Every structure is written in C-alpha cells, then in structure tokens.
C-alpha cells in the first residue's frame, strides 16, 4: 500500500498542495507566495516523476491495477506538469483580476493537472472516468472563472456539451464493461482476444462512444465545437492550458485504451480507417474555420482542432504494420513540440493583450513588430513553428507524423496533412503580417509595451527555448518518446 502511494507521488503532491491552497487562500494574501507554492508543487511533481523514472519503479502497477507507472505515463506526467507550470507562470494578470479567488484558481489548475496525469497512468475504466471528470469539472470552473459574459457563457457551454459527452462515454464504457466483465484494460484486451469474435457491433458501438468522449477532450472534429467557445471565453492562461494539456491527456488515454485494451487485430483495421477519417475531417474543419477568425484566441482554438487532426494521423498509423512504435512516438513527440509552441504563442498573446487593453483582435496587432520587437518575434516564431516551418519543434513533429503515415501505407493521409499545412499557413501568417508588415497611423503615440513580469518572461523564455531546442535537436525527444511508447507496444 505504501508502495502504491509512492507510485501516486506525482499526483499526490499536486492534490495535497491543491487542497492546502484552498484554505491557504484565507490567510496568505500575497499572490507571489500562492503562485510559488503552486509552482513548487508542479516542480515537485516533475521531480517525483523523474525519481520514479530513475528509481526502478517503471512498470509497477498500483491500486489493484488501476494505476500504472510506466515510461509512457511518466512522459505525460512531466509534459502535463510542465504545461501547467507555464499556465501558472502567465496567470499573473488573471490572478490580479480575481483577488478573492486566487486559491481556488490555482488549486483547480493543480487538480485538473493531477486528473490529467492520472488519466495518462490509469489502466482501469473507473479510474479513467473519475480522472477525466476531475479534470473536466476543474476545467469547467476555470473556463468560467472570470464570470464575465464570455467566460460564463463559455464555461456553461463547455459544461453542457462536456456532460453529454461524458454520458456518451459512460454508455460506451458500460457496454464494454457488460460485455467483457472487467474494468481493467488488459483484462478487456484478453477478453476480446478470446471471445471478441461475433461481438464487433457492440464493441464498435462502445468504441465509437469512447472515441466521441475522448475525441471531445482532444477537440477532434466532429467533437470539437466547444473548443473555440471555451478558449475564447476562458482566461487566456486557461485557454493555453486547455489547448495543450487536455489534448495531451486525451491522446494518452486514446492510445492506452485503443491499443492496449482494444488493440486486437479484430478491430485494429477499423481504427486505422476511423482515425484517418477523423484526422482528415479535423484538419480541414480546423484549418478552414480558422481562416476567417479575427480573434487570435479563437483562431488558435480552431488551429488546435487542426493540430488534433494532425495528431490523429499518428493514431491511424499505429494500427498498421511497423507503424506502432513510430506512430505512437510520433504522437508523443508532436505533442511535446506542439505544447511548447502553443504555450509560447499564448504567452505572447497574453502579454500583448495586457498592453492592448485586453484585445485579442489580430488587426490590433498592427505595427507591434516595431513597438515590441522581441515579443513579436517570439510570437512569429511560435506561429511559424505551428505552420511547421523549420527550424522549429512542430516542423519535425509534422515530418515525423507524416512519416508514420507514409510508413503505414497511408500516404494519402500524409498528403492531406501536408496540404493542410498549406491552408494553415494562410491564417498563421496573418498575425505575423499584422505585426511586421502592417503599420498604424499614429505610430508615435502608441504606448511602449511595458516590460512583462519576471514570471511571464521566464515562461516565455522556457517555452521558446523549448521550441528551438526541439527544432534543432529533435533526436533527444524522439528517443524519449520512443522509450515511452515501448511501454505499450513492445
């Protein structure tokens, strides 16, 4: 039991500190201390994950098989905690806005992160459900946290759609449970392998419901509609967090469920088709809808739909020969690259909005390249990375994922993905154009951009360095991703 708790370490740190924060809020009035605590918790979580990694706990299962600590889970734990750290670091302004709810805000971020981390490590359907709901409910609240017109509306919509999605997901799980008689992923897998034949329809219905539920979290079309609304309404750090963390965890659990529990050859061929179709749809929907957006948060929301589609390419590839390792590690690598890149973009957007009077209108970015050259440069760099141009993280992520597609005989999917890169260039370049190319009339009267706070600068520096490092030396991360997925596909 103690060993089990040990395995839970990374999440436990977050939960405990989160709980502490809830009432620490009552007597600790200083924002810096609260943020410091939160960051310390996240850092502690990362360190704990690292310890688990090095101390020989890899492969251990705890809590009756509900939780597993493998490299796959650890990879996501670190990634998610890192993303949460970035979100916390850039939350200065949000916290200033809501002085009376700081503890809740930070605690909910920690809870949500813990939920996502559990999701990555859970091997039990009930565990999956609870972890998912923990993170979802935290996120509903966080999205509506500002209680303004947009935030509350976004939060409500996210909740209502999310609740339906949860119900659908549960129905799928119920069918699966009834059919296989177990909530444990590996037991489900063995049941399907032995007795699955002839029950494809029920299995597929369950699977479809599961896809809908997790696809909702990952914002994959056609389950993506909440994303733009939630992102637009949410406090921007939360939007950043949602766009990367939710997606990452959703893909983690998709990989686990669909290739650990449902990975039997009986069904695998279907996965290839389904995920390829979803990938295509997501990429087109996300990219086409993003073109006309003038609100950069909304644009990035649609772009995240498209990015989810790109990630789906990896899922589609897993089902094929030789594709397993490559596809899964491609997803992991891409997720990491996408996370740092998107966070970099959001960091700058937050800073710009702070000085712009809170506007996220791309057109108001005109002439920013002159007033705030470094900020603009970082944003442009992040957007160029999101397109998938060198020398950036997403560039290699895309190449890697497309390679998985080609390798699994889905070259057409790679072509679709590559063509979508083209479409995405059309809108990703718009802010770049606005910042560096457009000019404003009253150039001189525009205020200088104030120097951002240290925490934000730190976040910006970290994620930008991440984008560049992954872009210039992807080998390290690729090897890590490979090792992580070997835990599942070996």
């Amino acid at each position, binding site marked *: 039991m103690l060993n089990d708790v040990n395995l839970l370490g990374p999440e436990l740190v977050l939960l405990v500190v989160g709980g502490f924060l809830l009432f620490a809020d009552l007597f600790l009035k200083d924002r810096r201390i609260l943020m410091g605590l939160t960051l310390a918790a996240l850092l502690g979580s990362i360190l704990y994950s690292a310890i688990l990694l090095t101390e020989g706990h890899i492969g251990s299962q705890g809590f009756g098989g509900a939780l597993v600590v493998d490299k796959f889970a650890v990879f996501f734990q670190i990634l998610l905690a890192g993303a949460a750290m970035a979100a916390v670091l850039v939350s200065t302004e949000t916290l200033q806005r809501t002085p009376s709810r700081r503890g809740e805000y930070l605690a909910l971020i920690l809870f949500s992160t813990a939920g996502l981390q559990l999701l990555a490590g859970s091997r039990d359907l009930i565990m999956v459900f609870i972890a998912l709901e923990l993170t979802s409910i935290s996120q509903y609240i966080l999205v509506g946290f500002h209680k303004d017109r947009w935030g509350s509306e976004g939060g*409500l*919509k996210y909740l*209502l*759609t999310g609740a*339906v*999605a949860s119900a*659908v997901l549960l129905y799928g799980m119920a069918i699966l449970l009834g059919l296989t008689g177990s909530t444990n992923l590996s037991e489900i897998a063995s049941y399907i392998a032995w007795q699955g034949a002839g029950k*494809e*329809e029920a299995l*597929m*219905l369950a699977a*479809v*419901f599961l*896809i*809908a539920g997790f*696809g*909702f979290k990952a914002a994959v*079309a*056609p*389950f*993506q*509609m*909440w994303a*733009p*609304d939630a992102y637009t309404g949410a406090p921007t750090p939360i939007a950043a967090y949602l766009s990367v963390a939710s997606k990452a965890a959703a893909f983690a659990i998709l990989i686990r469920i669909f290739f650990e529990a449902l990975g039997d050859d009986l069904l695998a061929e*279907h996965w290839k*088709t*389904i995920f390829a*179709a*979803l990938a295509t749809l997501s990429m087109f929907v996300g990219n*086409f*809808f*993003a*073109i*006309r*957006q003038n609100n950069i948060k909304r644009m990035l929301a*649609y772009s995240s739909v498209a990015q989810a589609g790109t990630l789906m390419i990896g899922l589609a590839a897993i089902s094929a020969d030789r594709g397993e390792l490559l596809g899964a590690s491609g997803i992991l690598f891409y997720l990491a690259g996408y996370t740092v890149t998107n966070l970099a973009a959001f960091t700058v957007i937050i800073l710009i909005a702070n000085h712009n009077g809170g506007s996220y209108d791309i057109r108001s970015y005109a002439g920013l390249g002159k007033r705030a050259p470094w900020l603009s440069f970082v944003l442009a760099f992040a957007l160029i990375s999101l397109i998938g141009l060198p020398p950036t993280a997403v560039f290699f992520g895309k190449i890697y994922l497309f390679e998985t597609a080609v390798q699994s005989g889905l070259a057409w999917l790679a072509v679709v993905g590559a063509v979508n890169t083209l*479409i995405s260039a*059309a809108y990703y370049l718009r802010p770049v154009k606005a910042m560096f190319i457009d000019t404003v009339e009253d150039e001189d009267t525009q205020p200088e951009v104030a120097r951002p706070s240290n925490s934000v600068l730190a976040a910006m520096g970290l994620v930008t360095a991440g984008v560049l490092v992954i872009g210039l030396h992807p080998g390290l991360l690729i090897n890590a991703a490979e090792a992580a997925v070997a835990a599942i596909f070996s």
Partner: protein
Amino acid sequence: MPETIFWVILFLPLTAFALAGISALNQNLQRQIPEWDPSYPRAWKPIADQFCGPRLASTPLIIALAVAFVLAVINLIDSIGLRGLPLDIGTHLLFSAGDLKVNLGVRIDGLTSVMLVVVTGVSLLVQVYSTGYMDGDHGYRRYFAFMALFTTSMLGLVLADNLLMLFAFWELVGLTSYLLIGFWFHRPAAAAAAKKAFLVTRLGDLGMLAAMILIYSKTGTLDIAAINALADSGAEAGMFALNGLMIGQTAMTLFGLGLIAGAVGKSAQFPLHIWLPDAMEGPTPVSALVHSATMVAAGVYLLARFFPVIHASSTASDLIAWIGAGTALGAAILALVQVDIKRVLAYSTISQLAYMMFAIGIGGYAAAVFHLMTHAFFKAMLFLGSGSVNHSTNTFDMRKMGGLRTLMPITFITFAVGTLSLAGIFPLSGFWSKDEILIYAWDHNKGVFVLGLLAAGLTAAYMVRAVYMTFFGEYKGGEEVAPGEHGNEDPSHPHESPRSMTVPLLILMVISVVAGFLTIGGEFQTWVYGALPDPHAGKFHWSWGIFLGSTALALTAGFAAFAFIHHRDRIRSWGIGGIWPIPEAQKFATELFYLDSLAENFLARRVFYRWIAQGSAWFDEHVVDGVVNRAWREGLTVSSASRFVQNGWVQAGTLSIGLGGMIIWIAVVLF
C-alpha cells in the same frame, strides 16, 4: 599563312571595338562626374579627356581595318598561289558537353579569301567615309564601336570552320545590324525598323538553327568541311555516307531548306525581304556597309559555303532558284516606284542579291560569289553617294532633289558609274558578273533566265530614273535640318562633300570599274571553287548572244526610262498617269504588293499579337491564375461556413457528437 594572322584579322577590329567602347563609355560617364566624384579618381579625368576622345573611336578602327585589309589581300594572293585549295588552318575546343564538342576554328579557302578582302576593303572605305559623314553626331563614338563590332562579326562569320561558330557570328551580325539600324533611336521609325530587321532575320535564323540542330543530331558533327564532303559524296539509296557519317536524303533536304531559310532572312529574299527597305533608317554608311555590301551578302555566303548541300537536293536548289528569280524581278518592280533614293537602292540590293541566290540555285556558284564581290563595291559606292547627297540636302526624298549634277560633281560621277555598273553596261564590273549569271541561267533554267533578264532591264530603268531625279533638272531645295539632328545648315545651297567622303567614293569607283576584269580567263572561278568540284565545271561558255542581248536590253530600258521621265508632262497629257501606265498597278507597287501590310499589320499585329498573345494572356490571367484565386475565395467561403456550423448553440456541439459517432458506427458496421 600562319593561323595567327587570321586571328589577328579577327581581333584587330575587336580591339578597335574595345577602344571605341571605352571612348563611348567615357563620354557617358563624363556626364555623371559631379555626382560620382568621390570614386572618380581626379588623375583619370585629364587622361580621359586626352585619350578617350572621339578619335579613340574612329582612328584605331581605320588603322585596324587597313592592316586587316593588307593581310587579307596578301592572303588572297597566297590563295591564288595555292589555286584556292581549302585549308583548315586550325581549330580549338571551346567547350564540350557530353558528345557535343564546340570548336573555334578558322577555315580558309578561295571563298573565304575573297570575302575577307571584300569585307575589310569595303568596311575600311566606309569607315573613312563615316569619319566625314558622322562628324559632329552625338553618337559618333558609339557609331564606331558598333561598326567595329559589326566588322568583327562579319569576319568571324566568314572565317568560321564550323556551323555553330558561323551561326554565332551570324547572330552577332544580326545584332550589330540591329544596333546600327536603330542607331538614331530617338526616331521612332529607326527603333521600329531595327526591331523589325532583327525579328524578321531571326525568323529566318530559326530555320538555320533548326538546320544546325538537325545536322548535328543526324551526323554528330558541325564541321563545315565534313558536312560538305558528306553532301558532295552523293546519295546512294537515299543515303549519304562518308567517313562514318550518315544522313538520309530527306534530312539533307531539310538541312538545305533550313539553310535557305536563314539565307532568305539575312539576304532579304521573298518573303522575308520586308525588313531591308525599313532598315534604311540607319545612317547611310551603315546602309552601305551592312545592307548592301556585306551583311546581306552573308546569306549568299552561307549558301555558297554550303553549296554542296544545296545541290545535294534538287528541292532545295530549285526552291532557291525560283525564290531568287522571283525576288529579283519583284524587287526591281518595287524599286521603280520608290521616291526615296535609299529605298530605291535597298530594293535594288534585294534584287541583286536575288541574282546571286538563283545563281546558286542553278549551280552558278562562282558567278554568284563574283557578283557578290562586284556588287559589294558598286552598291557601297551608290549608297555612299546617296549619303553624300543627303549630307548636303538633308533628305533622301528624290522629289526634293534634282540638278545636283553641277553642284556635286564628284558624287554625280561616282553615282553615275555605279549606276552603269549596276545596270550591267560594258565594261563595268556589274556587266561581267551579271552576265555570267544570266549565261548560267540560260544554260540551266530558261524560266529563271527570263525573269532575270526582265529584272536586268528594270534595273537599268529604275537606276536611270533615280539618277535623273537626283542629278538632273532643277534643284528643289532639299529639306531643313530637323531639330536635334546634325546636317547641312543651309540645304538651299548644296555643296560637295568633304574629302573624307569623296575619296572613298573615288576609290570605290575605280574598283567598280576594274573588278570585273578578274573574271576574264576564268581565274576567279578557280579560286573560289577551291577543292569543291563544280557541278558544271568546264561547261561554262561565254555567250555573245546573251552579252549583246542583255546590254541592249539595259540600254533600251535605261533610255526609255530617261525619255519617259524627261517627257513626263507630255506623256501625262496623253492621259496616262505617273510613270506607270496603270494607276492601280502603281498603287499596287507603291504599297509593296501589300506584303508589308500583310506581314506586319495582319500576321504580326492582328493574328499573333492581338489574337494569339492576347488570348493567351487572358487565359493565363483568368484561367490559370483565376482557378487558383477562385479556389482561394471558395476556401474563404468554406471558412465562413464556420459561422453557420459554429452557431454558438450548445446543441450544435452535442448534436455533432451524436451525429459524428453514429456516422462512424454505421459506416463501420455496414462496411
């Protein structure tokens, strides 16, 4: 003679070109000095003023040409000593690409030797003349630079030992003629004429280019001697074969036709003759050198050079014979109605070149070259004479001249001698060469002979008309000098031209008178033929009948024309208009048989530029690009669909979850 000498001949004018170019550049740089002072070394300016003046442009060229001329004459004498045996002096690899080896080499035989003398000689005299004619022109230095480049190109053309080198210089000749015709580029007509000349000749050059590509791809060689030897070997079973090279009869015919196309363009034969009259927009010495004596002769030279090829194919030789004959007559008719003295001479040039063309077509290769040489001298003289007239009257319009006989005696005498020579009056050079061609024609193709004979008569007629209108009767006042141009300030009092212009005229007159005697005894033919066997060797005979007939015809036509013009008023009173009995015919002729109009206005402007080019441009803009732009706009429309789909309702999101899930399930279950 050692090879180096020929390279010296080639590079002498090239050096002159470089010096003239420096001079011309310096002239333009001087304008800029105030603005680029910092980097213009002060020490350089006096040197530039001292040495880079106008003299740097002309003097080196004249010296270079003089030296080259002397060398060419020595070579000619040498060549006579060798009985015209061809000599591949030397060849050097310029570059290679795979199997393609491009050489730079010199080939000397009788033809080349003659051409070298003609080119350097005429060019030398024209340059001397130009120093007077162009004196005071703003573009004096540029002029000589172009002239030097032109001479270089022409020399390279005649020296070339392979087809590619020949083609390269051939194009360069075209270029320099473009530059020289458009020399006074401020005149729109000159700029247009230059462009037209270049394009029309390039149309012919395409044929030559195609011929070259064809022969290379069939035989793998571009060497002139090898090609000629191959063509001369005669076809067996429709196949020429020699020294491992092989080519079919059809390919050989096509090759010949391609060469003919090139020659037709360059030598202004029907239907590509339309550029030459317009080209008279260039300075008159240019016309003398480029459009009478040398450049247009390049076409004839080409066919002479590839004479075995032309004669290896009856199609090719017949074609060029008839083109030549027709052009000879047609151009002579056109010359008869021109009022611009230079245009008369231009059409005359076309007509005379046509003689050479059909001479080659019927096998009178040596006669053609001989006529080329004599024509070069007397036609240069005629043009220079017209330039001299223009120098004092500022016009080329013969209707504004008249009575210059006494005012410009030297010009008159030389012009008259030239006229007589051109008309083929015994014993001037034109007589010998033309009659030789006619005799050939009589022997081999009676139809061509008839046309040639008619043309010969007309030649006398139009030249007499030109001489009469220019030098006889009352002086009609010339024309005021146009603003921005240089010329005689007082055209109402014409005067004889300076010595720099008259001396070359006189020298040319002497040559025109004596050059014809070279043919006596058949020496000339022997040089020119060189190693090439004459298809009609030994069959040539002097025909007194034709000699008498043609002379009589020329005299008759000349006198008739004289009488006709002189008594114009009286003839008019008989109810016949103009010098042409039928007004419609005259209009037909003055409109140049409507050929120019057809080519320029209809084919070039309307069919090509308006229809084809505009259509393509429209297609490019609206279809090729339009599709892309349309796709882009449609993409934006699709993007706008987000407003419909993402309508903000919660249920849109939940609905799509259900719908999406169901579609997937149904698809999986059904398929």
